[in-house]
């Protein structure tokens, strides 16, 4: 069985990360931004797992780290969506460029 080389996995995760970063900085929809952030966090998870699989490093540490990342990503999404909901109730919008009470 041939395995995917580490470089390819790292290129994939870096691409995934920057796609997420691009989405987070250019999207107007707040839910879209939250999804882009999840993509960035998943790129981190891919990184950890591929290092643990391919290199001579502790697999347990990497897997524990990934589990914690997943849990805190869920918590961030919960808090983030709750805040988006509150903002929607107050300002009737979920587009970041229409939220502009606090400026200069």
């Amino acid at each position, binding site marked *: 069985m041939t395995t995917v080389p580490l470089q390819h996995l790292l290129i994939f995760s870096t691409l995934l990360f920057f796609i997420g970063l691009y989405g987070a900085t250019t999207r107007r929809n707040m839910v879209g931004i939250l999804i882009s952030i999840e993509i960035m966090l998943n790129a981190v998870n891919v990184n950890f797992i591929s290092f643990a699989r391919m290199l001579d*490093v502790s697999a347990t540490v990497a897997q524990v780290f990934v589990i914690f990342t997943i849990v805190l990503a869920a918590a961030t999404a919960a808090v983030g969506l709750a*805040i988006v909901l509150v903002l929607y109730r107050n300002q009737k919008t979920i587009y970041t460029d229409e939220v502009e009470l606090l400026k*200069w």
Partner: protein
Amino acid sequence: MSALLSIPFFGSELILVVSFFIAMALDFAFSDKKWVAYFTLAALALAWWFGPPAGASVRLFFGSFVWDPVTHFFKGLIYGTIGLTVIASLAYEQIPGRIRGEFYMLLVALALLLTVMGASVNLLMIFLAIESVSLTSYLLVGFQKFDQRASEAALKYVLFGAVSTALMLFGMSLLFGITGSIELSIIGAHIAKLDAASQTLALIGMLFVLAGIGFKISVVPFHFWAPDVYQGAPTPITAFLTIAPKALGFAVLARVFLTAFPFFMAQWATLFSFLAILTMTIGNVLAVSQHDIKRLLAYSSIAQAGYILVGLAAPSSLGLQAILVYVIAYLFTNLGAFFAVLAIERQLRTNDIGAYNGLAKRNPFLALSLTIFLLSLAGIPPLAGFIGKIFIFASAVKEHAFALAIAIALNSAVAAYYYFKVVKAMYLTPADSAERIENPMPTRIAICITLAGTIAIGIWPTVLIRFAEQALIVFPAF
């Protein structure tokens, strides 16, 4: 050290966990939430009392945390900030009574999480601590859930915060891949032995980690969230956010960069010098044109972060000592300024600087104490801010970082201008109305404590300097 042996060093944290749940139960039992606040204060005092004594450096829970004098020092800072915030928020009526119990509860949780943040010495714990402190802060910023500005501030905070956490995690994953460890000290030992290509990769990882921590301490170019969040958040929370998470951000920054990246010290010291000059200049210049006092103090707090960063831009034991002295001086000064703002906002329902016209006639005590806090922020002797600034200045000069020293001097002049603008409004501009501004008991107590701290540090700085020296006695660097 194994988990069981570590428990005795975790006494105050356990007490805080238990009191968090008791506070939750009290929230159901009492309709007058001030009892929850009193309980919170008692819990903090109890936790401090039963905490382990400051002594040698002990690694707890299989090397996840370290209990050393630095942790002890920051624990005192956290408990002090949270205690004063709880006292002042008793007078803050813009938070609906029904949810005030949860407000105090979350502050207890923050006391615990921030202590953990200061004690973490491995990447996983640093990530967990920073992220959970951030999550709790997002909630507290958006606590006035029917207020449009508060929810907008919370949203900006959560989006910026989550992106910077992702950046930090990406850096951590690279560091783990290169060095095979998440322990800061092992990473530090490993990087020196790598080949050039891997070292470049480690440098990139370091920059990503800096982005994550830089967000917490609102250093330029990661400062965009700060003015909006500080303006929109409830005033006691703004006071708290400008001190505790920021000071702990600096603690984490010092730990990470001095233990994991001593190999790149020349590189990051130069980088920090640029960031420090940029941060103080941009913070001060943008503060000049502000009309909202909370926003003005927000930009001033960005500038202050720039001053504190000088302590790491000129890495030496004097620099670290300067950071510790500065954060304590800044604690009393900035908390006091925000408490005075809180007392005025409470009655006038506005934070416009125009509303401060003639304050000296409407409440002489508030005007005088706010003046003292602003003078201390500007670094006028003999107040606390002056002691902090002189230490920072000395640490830059001692390392021959004259560009930094000149930047500090020039920026202090700019800063003095906008602080004096407020003082001028209070004393020289006539008031629109003669109605007296009330200063209720809780804010009066909080302002008196911070005022005493500001003046006492200015007059007897040796006590604080000795504390800072003792805290650094077993710190691994230098």
